[in-house]
């Protein structure tokens, strides 16, 4: 190093009195000169250093919001909800959603004759599996989060939404991408809504694994029973869809009553 910043220049630099070219030259020099970096300390007020350090460390320390959540901030979703969503361990529910969607597509492809039946049978279960996998019994922070005042119902519903963000498009993609399934691409949504609500309702009594298992088994049995008398395509008819809509509305109402009753009884929601 052939030169060092002298006291006069440092004082002018700290006071912001250097012309832009000289200030830029000092900036560039300090980056590569440990002696001048050390000398700089003597020319800056400790309070200023503290403020600069706090600002820098705060900027570095602040968690970065995942890409998929950034648009939600623009839509006005509260910052604390975004923190919960960004922290939720979603690898398992998302893997479950994508995995079960791929399994559904594979089975539908393997059995061209029963393609529609397979799709109607399995697609509504994709969100159920994702929601169950996102529920709090699989939360690694459960022991930390339970004794906090944050609403556990809100926590569960935020995770449910996060799980559905992947599960619904995954199931929909199968319906739209596999030739021959296009007419059914949206017909699985209402059964899926009802089954997901049923799973959430059961989760107020049962563990995630048992609740998810019960809903899946009940759906498979129900579809098999219908299949004995009718073609399974009957589930896609307007009448059946209306029935699913009514069932979903009833389940939503029961779910609301159940959760508010749990609160009155001192339950942990």
């Amino acid at each position, binding site marked *: 190093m052939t030169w060092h910043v002298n006291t006069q220049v440092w004082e002018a630099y700290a006071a912001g009195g250097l012309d832009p070219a000289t200030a830029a030259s000092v900036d560039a020099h300090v980056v590569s000169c440990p002696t001048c970096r050390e000398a700089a300390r003597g020319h800056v007020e400790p309070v200023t250093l503290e403020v600069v350090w*706090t600002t820098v*460390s*705060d900027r*570095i*320390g*602040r*968690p970065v919001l995942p890409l998929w959540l950034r648009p939600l901030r623009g839509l006005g979703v*509260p*910052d*604390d909800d975004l*923190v*919960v969503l*960004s*922290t939720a*361990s979603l*690898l398992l529910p998302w893997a479950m959603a994508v995995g079960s969607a791929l399994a559904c597509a594979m089975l539908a492809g393997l059995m061209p004759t029963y393609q529609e039946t397979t799709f109607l049978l399995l697609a509504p279960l994709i969100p159920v599996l994702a929601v169950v996998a996102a529920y709090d019994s699989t939360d*690694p*922070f459960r*022991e*930390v*989060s*339970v*004794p*906090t*005042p*944050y609403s556990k119902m809100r*926590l569960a519903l935020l995770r449910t939404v996060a799980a559905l963000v992947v599960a619904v498009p995954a199931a929909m993609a199968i319906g739209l991408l596999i030739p021959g399934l296009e007419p059914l691409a949206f017909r699985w949504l209402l059964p899926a809504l009802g089954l997901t609500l049923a799973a959430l309702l059961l989760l107020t009594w049962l563990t995630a694994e048992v609740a998810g298992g019960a809903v899946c088994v009940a759906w498979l049995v129900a579809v098999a029973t219908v299949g004995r008398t009718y073609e399974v395509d009957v589930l896609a008819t307007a009448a059946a869809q209306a029935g699913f809509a009514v069932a979903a509305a009833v389940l939503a109402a029961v779910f609301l009553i159940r959760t508010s009753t*749990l*609160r*009155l*009884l*001192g*339950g*942990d*929601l």
Partner: protein
Amino acid sequence: METAILENVSKSFGRTVALRPTSLVLRPGVVGLLGPNGAGKTTMLRLLATALPPSSGRIVVAGHEVTTSHADRIEARRRLGYLPQEVVFPRGMTAFGFLDYVAVLKEWRDTEARHGEVRRVLGLVQLGDRGARKVSALSGGQRRRLTIAQAMIGAPDLLILDEPTTGLDPEQRASLRGLLSGLVGTVLIATHQTEDVSTLCDRVLVIEDGTISFDGTVPELLTTAAGRVHAGPAASRGAITTWKTGTGQIRSVGGQPHPDAVPVEPSVEDAYLLLRGQASTTEGVPS
């Protein structure tokens, strides 16, 4: 002023009784909870932390009855901090991110205030410069301090710590003791480190087989062992434990001392072992 009250509280898991009917009042100060593995320490802590409902009895935390009313339980949760025995962290999370999440769960809604609180507790556990680090990159001791920091968010009236000094080196333990001894509220610490109890606690509880077998101050605990710990050329007959000291003497806890042995000052560990020994020798004796 009572910070927490347990009235005839018991907890069973199926046929296993983890805590027998227990009554207890906690006031400001540092309380140590000693007991062997499986004695019911963690169960008692989880009950107080409202992480577990009792099978019977009544629990009041910071004036709020947590056993019946949901609203009171939420209010109590606003006033307590809990460090579980083990915390599993999701991959990729930073130290700051972890505390930020817990602060949200503790209802710190305002982002600036929340981040200020996160920085405060990071500083308390001397991790102020580690906020941006991934938790997976922290050492075991740093991770433990991070979990202690989450319990301290919001300066709770009741701080419940399950084995906080596990994994900390002697310097970090001393630093943590300094921090805990300076807190204003009630601190309940379950520990296997009798040294923590003797240096830090105003009160000691010894729990065994789901029952509190001792409740008193450290000097009172030491009194129970007075004249029962000896050093001599040979071990005491029937001693609970013996070992050879650096001076070549045999130190014996309990038992019939050797005629040439002299009584020595007992430690909290001696007193604890004697209490445990008493319990095991009286087990199965009809009352």
